[in-house]
């Protein structure tokens, strides 16, 4: 399988974060990522990525604004002609920083909120942050950026989806991402307390549909569906190692941010060029194309549509990353998902959440 050229780079500048969202998809093993790439190291990554064909740069983390060089790296991306997107909790996006980022050529800002109102948002974030987020959203619009609001939905906030949409409208967001929780990292750890019930989803759906119709042409409503309740799995990001790559804070290179958990040899910009990793590394080659697929995917006419689902989810649930994503109703492992869904639809579900620590060794 010949590698195509990647379109996007997810640059996870640091996993440090002032928030401690229990749904956070960051790795549970933060200790391995403390040795962060230097500014020169990141500059080199961006230059190599541009040469590989990357056109979009997502600056994320952790909280990317904790890196003092985020403005400088934005400028590097801009000089390379990349479209740049800051993915942020908005803590640290004060007026001075925002103006510097604007001058450095940042194209787009995505701010996450945890709910539509302060008390719930701060509780889920584990930090007083809601008011500053709202201020930052207004600043983003004032400075003329397009604004995406991102809200991770789960059992403890999905009943507020109507109010979340109203908040996005009030803030004049250009897009809203209603991202049902993906169960990686801390979210996997907290899955039972986060997975919504069928009744909750049924209640949210018409609210989202009505808002989408009402806001058409003004705000784009992007809905990431809860795959545990789907018949088919979510497609693996346009195919494994086909369109995107991720560089973790320590320089590890991954086909997707969840892939750090897979039992495959590590690839790092400290040891190899991005080009070589993208084209030849065992990690990137492992599930490229469709040749690796077992049945039922191998003989399925959807194999070029969803690529057999998510490798990381297959690994997480079955211990074998090459199996069909257990979310698929054709998977022999679907019972693993059904068990979790059944538990989420019982009368009482424990709602206790384990917060993600702010950094390795801290809480």
């Amino acid at each position, binding site marked *: 399988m010949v590698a195509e050229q990647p*379109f996007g780079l997810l640059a996870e500048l640091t996993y440090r974060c002032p928030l401690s969202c229990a749904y956070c998809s960051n790795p549970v093993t933060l200790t391995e990522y403390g040795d962060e790439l230097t500014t020169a190291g990141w500059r080199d990554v961006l230059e190599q990525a541009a040469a*590989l064909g990357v*056109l*979009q740069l997502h600056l994320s983390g952790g909280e990317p604004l904790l890196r003092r060089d985020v403005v400088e790296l934005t400028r590097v991306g801009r000089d390379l*002609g990349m*479209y740049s997107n800051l993915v942020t909790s908005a803590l640290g996006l004060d007026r001075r920083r925002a103006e510097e980022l604007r001058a450095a050529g940042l*194209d787009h800002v995505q701010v996450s909120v945890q709910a539509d109102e302060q008390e719930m948002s701060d509780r889920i974030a584990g930090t007083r942050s809601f008011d500053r987020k709202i201020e930052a959203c207004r600043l983003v619009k004032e400075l*003329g950026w397009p604004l995406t609001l991102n809200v991770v939905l789960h059992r403890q906030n999905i009943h507020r989806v109507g109010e979340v949409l109203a908040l996005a409208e009030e803030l004049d967001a250009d*897009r809203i991402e209603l991202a049902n929780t993906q169960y990686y990292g801390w979210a996997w750890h907290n899955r039972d307390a986060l997975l919504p019930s069928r009744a909750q989803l049924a209640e949210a759906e018409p609210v989202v549909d009505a808002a989408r119709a009402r806001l058409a042409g003004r705000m784009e409503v992007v809905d990431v569906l809860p795959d545990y309740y789907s018949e088919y799995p979510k497609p693996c990001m346009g195919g494994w190692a086909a369109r995107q790559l991720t560089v973790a804070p320590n320089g590890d290179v991954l086909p997707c941010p969840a892939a750090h958990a897979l039992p495959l040899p590590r690839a790092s910009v400290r040891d190899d060029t991005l080009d070589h990793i993208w084209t030849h590394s065992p990690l990137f080659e492992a599930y490229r194309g469709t040749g690796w697929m077992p049945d039922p995917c191998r003989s399925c006419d959807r194999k070029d549509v969803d690529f057999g689902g998510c490798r990381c989810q297959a690994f997480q649930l079955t211990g074998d990353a090459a199996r069909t994503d257990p979310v698929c109703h054709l998977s022999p492992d679907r019972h693993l998902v059904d068990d979790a869904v059944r538990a989420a639809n019982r009368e009482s579900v424990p709602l206790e959440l384990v917060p993600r620590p702010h950094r390795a060794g801290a809480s």
Partner: protein
Amino acid sequence: MESVRLAPHVRLRFDAARGRHVLLSPETVAVLNATSADVLALCDGRAVDDIVAALRERYDHVDEADVRTFLERMAARRCLEVDDGR
């Protein structure tokens, strides 16, 4: 639709790595064919009639209805800002 311009949040550029024009926006990259790139490069706030006229200087056959359909599709994806002249 009277006149059109590229939305402020999208960027049209030539991508040397692929040898094609691309339209970049927050979450998508559209790789364009030569005609689409030509049409979009003309979307600088001028009238649709002028866009069609400019294309006719470059191409032998320009179907105005096709151009308008394309522009409407791009506008529906919020890549273009439309002024209806009202």
